């Protein structure tokens, strides 16, 4: 696996989030307000299995891209993604690194991002959605789908990240 594999993978994930919402909006997203949050899952896994610096960098860069390209609300996601990466890195100091803790933190991270985004939208007057509607129509379905996806991809993703990290540190000892 080459050096550029991981940035490439995260970039594709970032682009797919938008494309998925556009292409599958009719059948999937009409009833519930499902939101793809795979980016933060990747950032969580990168923070845990590769390192804090990498996690925070990816969080900041892709958060900023998300802000500039998609939401046009500068800084919001860049701040959230890098802060979450930082807190997860701190929490991992006292916990074991394995697929289960990573999955758990990924779900916690999605929860944080969703409520954070909702809070910001409430403050700036971007939505009038009630907490109840948000919880039932948006938050729970999103969390449910992501939990399933995370449980499926957690182990392969972990193996892949560790392998990539190993290869890279072999080729360029830091």
């Amino acid at each position: 696996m080459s050096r550029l594999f991981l940035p490439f993978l995260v970039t594709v994930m970032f682009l797919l989030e938008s494309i998925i919402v556009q292409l599958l909006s009719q059948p999937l997203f009409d009833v519930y307000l499902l939101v793809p949050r795979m980016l933060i899952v990747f950032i969580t896994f990168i923070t845990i299995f590769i390192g804090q610096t990498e996690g925070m960098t990816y969080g900041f860069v892709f958060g900023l891209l998300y802000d500039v390209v998609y939401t046009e609300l500068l800084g919001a996601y860049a701040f959230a993604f890098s802060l979450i990466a930082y807190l997860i890195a701190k929490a991992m100091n006292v916990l074991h690194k394995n697929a289960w803790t990573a999955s758990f933190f990924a779900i916690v991270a999605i929860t944080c991002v969703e409520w954070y985004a909702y809070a910001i939208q409430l403050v700036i007057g971007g939505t009038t959605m009630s907490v109840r509607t948000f919880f039932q129509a948006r938050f729970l379905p999103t969390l449910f789908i992501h939990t399933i996806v995370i449980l499926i991809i957690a182990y392969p993703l972990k193996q892949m990240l560790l392998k990539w990290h190993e290869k890279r540190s072999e080729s360029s000892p830091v």
Partner: protein
Amino acid sequence: MPKFFLNKRLIILLVSIMVLIALIGFSLKERDELSWMEKFTKDTVVFMQSIVHKPAQFVAGFFENVNDLRYTYEENKRLKEHLEQYVLLESEVESLKKENERLRELLNKKESLRDFVAIQATVIGRNPDRWEETLIVNKGSQHGVKKDMAVITPQGLIGKVRSVSPFSATVQLLSAKDRQNRISAFIQGDENVFGLIEGYDEEREALLLKRIPYDAKIEKGQRVFTSGLGGIFPKGLFIGEVEEVVADEYGLTQIAYIKPAANFYDIDDVIIVKRKIEMSQEEERQ
């Protein structure tokens, strides 16, 4: 004291929160143009996205095609019926158009608010955040797209251009929450009734047409079009049909719930509409 609350880190956190608030304030401000960095980033991402979009669309399109095949027979039958009516309608439209042209020539009035130039664009992304419903399309200022232009699909009006970069543009859908999103519209009837479209009711999935005179008689099913009085939109873009009319909170005006004609979810191609009569020309005339 745990490491977590060390002074230096706390200061960094506070500073970044302040920067965050400043940045959000900056982006909430009404901006006429994006900064060049935003434009560049957007165009780069949109370029990459259009590469990834093709195969993704192919996969999604395959399932859609299978679904379409199942209903082909029924649809065909219905379409054949429509076709006969269509021929009649077409000849009627043609004769009306000619008459209109002749009358216009008599009046010496060449351009109307209805005339527009269409710019075809493909939708290549949607805001995944989904708090604000916006689309990303692959045409930008290089193709003549400007801020606040109307965006339609063959079914009807879907929104307006919110920001432009050289090779892409962001379209804000009518369903987005934005106080500044006002569209001057009229309800077609024996006597046209004018009002302003302000806001969207998420639960009813209907647009709100406000400031209708209290004595105007409006019925369910009447059609609503843009009036072209707002300055940028051309006249006569179809918006939707009246669903219900209620009195407003003070009883001075009426509010109509409008069912949008266009589907806000399944959008692949859009038409960006540029009015032929520019604002300045209109002002000169007055």
